[in-house]
């Protein structure tokens, strides 16, 4: 019985795998999408508790994803922008598009990620 579900939208397979591994170990159900378009599909299918959203991705990037998703219609889902793009302007733009938080992923260890997800699940 899984605690709850997390949707990872990330084009870098190495990172997808490690996040999946780390979060699965905590009992979360993990769905992965390689870009925003797949992300929207899975979001509507599973209504995850947390979405980890990268910005730079092919097909549909993180910005475009948020433009296409009215996050207000998903009150039970937390949208965390999890990216290596450090630009105050972009961060603000993502918040304006409905993100709950913007995090620089290069600063996060696996333990940190667990802590972050727990914050939103509880």
């Amino acid at each position, binding site marked *: 019985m899984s605690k709850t579900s997390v949707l990872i939208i990330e084009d870098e397979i190495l*990172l997808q795998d*490690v996040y999946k591994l*780390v979060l699965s170990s905590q009992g979360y159900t993990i769905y992965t999408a390689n870009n925003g378009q797949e992300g929207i599909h899975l979001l509507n299918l599973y209504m995850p508790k947390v979405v980890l959203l990268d910005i730079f991705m092919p097909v549909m990037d993180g910005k475009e994803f948020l433009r296409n998703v009215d996050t207000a219609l998903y009150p039970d889902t937390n949208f965390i922008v999890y990216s*290596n793009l450090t630009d105050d302007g*972009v961060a603000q733009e993502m918040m304006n598009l409905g993100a709950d938080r913007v995090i620089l992923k290069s600063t996060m*260890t696996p333990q940190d990620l667990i802590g972050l997800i727990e914050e939103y699940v509880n």
Partner: protein
Amino acid sequence: MQSGSAKQPLYDLFMQAPAAIAVVRGPKHVFDFTNSLYLRLVGKTKAIHGKAVRDAFPELKGQGFYELLDTVYETGEPFIGNELPIDLDLNGSGTLTRTYVNFVYQPMKDAEGAIGGIMAHAVDVTAAVEGRLQIREDEERYRTLFNSINQGFCIIELIFDDHNVAQDYKFIEVNHVFEQQTGLKDVVGKTARTVIPNLEDRWVEIYGQVVKTGKPLSFTENSDAMGRWYEVDATRLGNPKSNCVAILFTDITKRKTIEDTLRQSEALNRTVIESLEEGVSLLDADGAIVSANKSAQRLLGLSLEQMQGRDSSDPRWKSVHKDGSFMPGSEHAPQQVLRTKKPYNNQTMGIHKPDGSMVWLNINAQPIIEDGELTGVVTSFFDITERKNMQEELERQLQITDTITKTASSCLFMIDNNGLVTYMNPAATRVTGYSLQESLGKPMHLLIHHSHPDGTPYPQSECPLVNTYTVGAPNPLHEDILYRKDGTSFPALISGTPIPGDVGIQSTVVEFRDIEEITNTLQRNNELEESTLLLKEQRAQLVALNNAKDDFIAIASHQLRTPATAVKQYLGLVLGGFTEPLTEVQHKYITTANDSNERQLNVITDLLKTAKIDSSRYVIRKERTPLASIIEAAITDMQLELDSRDQTVRYTTPKTPILVMVDRVEIKLVLINLLENASKYSYPQSEITVAVSKRNGQVHIDITDNGVGVSHDNVEKIFDKFTRINNVLSDTVTGSGLGLYWVRKIVRLHDGDVKVISKLGAGSTFRVSLPL
């Protein structure tokens, strides 16, 4: 005098007599007898009996009565006094009261004829005398008034017939002004119809009415019989039965005449004013329109009713100056007049009519001064819209012409019918070398066209340019040789155009261009165009490059980090216990790999930060922030690292908060960076001091350590990019060499600066100065 019983009846008679009687005896006039009326009259009691008159009536001293008595006693002649005043002290208070008496001092003789005493016999006539005096006084006062008024005054008595209809009136009394005001003499006692034979019946009727009704009347009336106008107040005198009327009147004939004349001239003026083409309006002393003529209504597009009461301050005028700028009401001509009390003429003002069209007016305003007081303003104005439009059009044309000729690259000469120069433009000056001054009035042909291309003289009489007026047709564009002031010649494209005036051709415009110059210009233009294109291209490339650089920073931040992030995650899995336990050596190696990866991530971050502030897109977001909160946040963020070296920070919050205008995120990073350096380049267990001070409009934050310090030679280098100075701790300290470069750049973006004082081996103080 008898004595004894024989006296008794006499005594009684005296006592009851209706007159005051007293008897005095002897030369001192000692009182022997007084009756009660006497005592009442003089205000005394019987106590005066036996007293001499001088003692009994001390108040009479100086009034002559003692002396009268003495005389009567001595001469034996009686004295009869008629209405004589006597001042008596009636109640013994010392206050004298005037009493008037008729009296007789009658000497009393004995048988031998000797005078034994005097009998005084008096009647009090005070009331009668005073009453009469009062009447006289009133009458005098009335007379004075009657004679002093300078209005005509008379009292008349109406004469009625048997049917009680007033027929005539009689003059009872007139004052001295009467004659002057009426021209009538000696009228008292005569009837009006006698002295004014053709007197209009209405005068008699009016006064008859006053008598009958008792109501005073005030009226203005003329009398043709007298040839005068009067202003009259008529009041019935005395009781209702009285037929008398008091009449106060003033001859106003003169005033009336003036008024009539004025009224006539006003009517005349109005007729004239109404027929004027000019608009005329009359304004009151407050500047509000009272009246305006037909032309004014037409010019302003307003009816008289719409205009009345409007003043200059009314925004509906929408008035403008000549140049079209808004003209406030205070500048309107009538307002100027109201302020200065002097005429204000020749104002040009534009007004928007209610229908939206604009009318231009020339306005004159005159003050109306009465008795030194300004009572109004008369404005007159006429429509100059057409004139102004024409003038403007003319000015515009002239300006255009002027601009064209001055800026034209063509050379222009204007010559009169004699071929003399009347104008040349700057281009002509530039090309020929002749100034306008030296050319004016000289024959143009001799200046620039004196020889044929082969050098032979070219007489002016043969020059078709100069002689266009004889032909009357333009001299078409052709090539010719012209000469400069310095004698050199040049090929020119030349034409002449005659300008028709009022009487035939008046002058000719000669236009020419230096063919070589045209060629050169064309070439130059082509070259210019080419180089402009090139510049534009280069600029576009530079912009694209700059944008690419900025884009690169963003992309690099992502792409450089991603592999290192993956490494971090996987090493994190191992180190975080997600796998089987590691041997000690494995753990050590993996940790080293992880540290190295962390360093790489930090370098990437520093590189990006540095690239970012060098980018054109970088902006700092300043807000007013308490400095202490930034410093405290920076120290808190550094706490773990400081603890790891067992170092402490000494910082005292300033007593009064200091507010700074900064990007608090960036300044916090600056302080963290400096604290990190202080910590890294100090030995464990040392102390770092943070001190804040204000001076010269700046706030200084000094971060002082007791660490390895920097040599004098290297002090400035540490702020350069990628500088790392070798020192005793270099081996243990990692860094990108970008930290201080970035720090100084950020502080300078805040209009502040970072300075360092350092001594090798003793420690450093980094001072961040920010404007207050």
